[in-house]
Structure formats: structure tokens, C-alpha cells
């Protein structure tokens, strides 16, 4: 059982983070990227061609993370692989004792820098979750047995900030039914939509079946904020938030302040099992934000215990 699974099962607060994309440089590059945030993070996501840009594969990076002594979450998206390739990567992950799997539909190829590529989407997100569970039950999709059956801690992603807002919790429930046990919530710059999702999830008891983990993005510049606002599918940045950064004397400090406000707001919602941090550049932003939020380093949380309620 992975640490992430054990902690979420015993309702311990977790911190996950996205490892910045890796394009080479071997194990040394992974260690370099990990260094500033390592003390605070329980598990690191190895992303799967984020925003439809090619990078080192999530399985290769997840193996690298294991080698670096930290726990990986392997993301898998449906955009670039058919069901056979997805099964191969799932079986390959199990082969290396990578248990945390996060299943995504994936941005379209048109969001990336190779928009001429063929989009695959042989499966969709909920089907990929069910596929992972099929393998965990000792079968490939064909029914051919896998012995020993792999163990996975299966997660999914949902976007509380994309229409139809009122349907998103039902879609998350479908993912729970398919086999997801944790749910990353997409970066959301409209706190009222995150609150609406988490409120509905709480009311319907969804949080009992799925560990809900909102994502917080730490940007550093006006250009970064503009990129997220205009180029990342499904993320709506209110004009006033963008204007706040554009007007600021110190855009980096303002971006940090916005991330802090959103994180505080997320922690104040019912049923939040942890936070997921995304920082596009290797920096100490995640450690700094955890400190400001009053979230202790991982080892300290493990020794002394920690409840997010202290932070608000």
C-alpha cells in the first residue's frame, strides 16, 4: 500500500505536487527539481505530456522519482495512447511498484505545440479508471489473467470550474463508481465554483468515497497568468485577477498572494483531504506557501499529526 493511500485512508492531511516537466538530464535533473519542495510533499505527480506538449514519459519519470526516494503518482491521459498502450503502461507501473495512478482524459492536441498530431481518446477518463481497476482485479481488458494482480491506488481529476457546473459532482460520482479513490480538482481561479463543488460533494457524501484534493497553482509573472488565462483549456481566470497581477509593482509577490488566498479558501471548505500544488518552475514557492499556510513539513506532520483546520 502506498503512503498516499495509507494517509488518505486514515484521513491524514496530504500534500501532493506536480514535478515540473523533465526533458532529460537523468536522475540529477529529477533530484534538482525535487530539492526545494521535497520536505513538504507526500507524493509527486509525474505528468503525461501536460497541455499536449511532449516530455519524458510519466512511467520513466515515476521510476526516476522512486529512485530519488520519493513517492510517485503516475498520471495517465487518454489523448496519446490507445487501450493497449494504456494497459502496457499500467502493467509497467505495477512492475516497478508504482501504485498511485491518476487517470485523466487529457487536453486536446490542439492545446499543444504539435496540433497536427492525431488525437487518440480510444478510452475516456472514466473508462481509463475502470480499466485500471480491471487490471487490479487480475485481468487485462480481454479477460486474460495477470498473476499476481497488481495493486493500484486509483485517482481521477475533475474540473469544478468548467460547465456544466452542477453536473460535475455527478461526473465525479461516476468516477468513484468506476474505481477512483482520490480526486484532484483542477486549478480554479473562481473560488465560488470550488466552494459550490465541494459543498455539493459534502452534501451528497462523495467525500466519503473519494479523497478530494484541490489544486493550487503558483505563478510568477504577468505572462504566466496570461498563459493560464488564455491557453490552458478549462481554466477561467476572472479579468480582475489578471488585472491585479498586471497592475502590481511586484507581479511575482502578487501571484504568490493570489495562490495563498485560494489555498486558504480551499482549506476552509468541508471535506478537503489535502492540497495539490503546481509550480511551473523549479523554485521554493511550494515550500514557502506551505509555511505561510501553516502546513508543517511531511516528517513533522507524521510525528505530531496535523489537521488542516489549524491553518485557517
Amino acid at each position, binding site marked *: 500500500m502506498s503512503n498516499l493511500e495509507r494517509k488518505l485512508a486514515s484521513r491524514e492531511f496530504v500534500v501532493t505536487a506536480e514535478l515540473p516537466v523533465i526533458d532529460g538530464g537523468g536522475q540529477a535533473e529529477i533530484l534538482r527539481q525535487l530539492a526545494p519542495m521535497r520536505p513538504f510533499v507526500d507524493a509527486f505527480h509525474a505528468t503525461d505530456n501536460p497541455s499536449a506538449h511532449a516530455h519524458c514519459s510519466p512511467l520513466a519519470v515515476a521510476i526516476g522519482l522512486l529512485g530519488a526516494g520519493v513517492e510517485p503518482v503516475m498520471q495517465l491521459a487518454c489523448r496519446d495512447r490507445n487501450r493497449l498502450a494504456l494497459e502496457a503502461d499500467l502493467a509497467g507501473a505495477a512492475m516497478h511498484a508504482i501504485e498511485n495512478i491518476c487517470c485523466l*482524459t487529457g487536453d486536446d492536441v490542439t492545446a499543444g505545440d504539435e496540433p497536427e498530431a492525431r488525437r487518440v481518446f480510444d478510452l*475516456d477518463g472514466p473508462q481509463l479508471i475502470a480499466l485500471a481497476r480491471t487490471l487490479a*482485479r487480475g485481468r487485462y481488458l480481454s479477460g486474460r489473467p495477470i498473476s499476481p494482480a497488481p495493486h493500484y491506488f486509483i485517482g481521477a481529476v475533475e474540473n469544478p470550474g468548467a*460547465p456544466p457546473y452542477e453536473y460535475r459532482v455527478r461526473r465525479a460520482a461516476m468516477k468513484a463508481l468506476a474505481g477512483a479513490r482520490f480526486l484532484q480538482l483542477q486549478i480554479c481561479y473562481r473560488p465560488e465554483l470550488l466552494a459550490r463543488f465541494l459543498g455539493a460533494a459534502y452534501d451528497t457524501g462523495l467525500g466519503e468515497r473519494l479523497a478530494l484534493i484541490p489544486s493550487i497553482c503558483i505563478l510568477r509573472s504577468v505572462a504566466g497568468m496570461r498563459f493560464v488565462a488564455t491557453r490552458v483549456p*478549462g481554466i477561467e481566470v476572472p479579468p480582475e485577477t489578471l488585472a491585479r497581477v498586471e497592475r502590481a509593482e511586484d507581479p511575482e509577490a502578487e501571484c504568490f498572494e493570489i495562490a495563498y488566498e485560494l489555498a486558504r479558501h480551499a482549506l476552509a471548505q468541508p471535506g478537503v483531504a489535502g492540497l495539490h500544488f503546481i509550480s511551473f518552475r523549479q523554485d521554493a514557492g511550494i515550500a514557502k506557501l506551505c509555511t505561510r499556510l501553516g502546513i508543517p513539513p511531511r516528517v513533522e506532520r507524521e510525528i505530531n499529526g496535523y489537521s488542516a483546520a489549524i491553518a485557517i
Partner: protein
Amino acid sequence: MTAPALLARAEHAVKGPVWGCQMCGQCVLHSTGLTCPMNCPKTLRNGPCGGVRADGNCEVKPEMRCVWLKAYERSERLPMWRGHIDHLRPPVDNRLKDTSSWFNLMTGRDRRPPAGWAANADVQP
């Protein structure tokens, strides 16, 4: 022309103009508010992706309303099959492309998911 092929031609003649049917051969229109999910550029069978724009339009085709947004709204208005949109639909059987889903419904061919998937029988709410 064989009977199944004739049926496929008739089905396309009816469902093409009305629902933009893409002849996947395993029709799920009843569970999607009579909205063909194969018109989603990602051909998603289980609800809207996270890329839906704030105005309700498609991530891939900004001028088009999200297929699944329409499916959700229409399924809420349908007098029957309302909860069916929440069912987990199995992966598409690509061998059925351009065959008649009417014929496949009669023979049960459209309800034969892979054996491993069938072992996931607890996926229906």
C-alpha cells in the same frame, strides 16, 4: 446488398440528419439526451471533459457548443431514461463502425463488452 447493410443505410438516412449520427454501431442516444457523443471531438462516451469553456463551448471547436453540455441539459428534460446519463458506458467496439446499431441491438452484439470489462459489473449505479 445484405439485410444488415440495408438496415445500416436506412439507419444512417434517418439518424444522420436528425442527430448527426456517426454510425458507431452501438447507439447510446437514449442515455445522452438524444445527443450523439461521437460528435464530441474527443469522442468521449462518459460526460464532458475538463476543457469546456466558460461560455459552454467546446475546447477543440470554440464555435461549437459542448456536445456533453447539450447531452446533460437534454437528458434532464427527457421524460424517460433520465438517470442513464450517469451510467458508465463501456469502451467503443471499433469493429462495429458503420454497422447498424438497430441490427446490433436485435442480435445483442452491441452489448458485448470485453470479458475483463464485464468483470467490472459493479459499475452501474
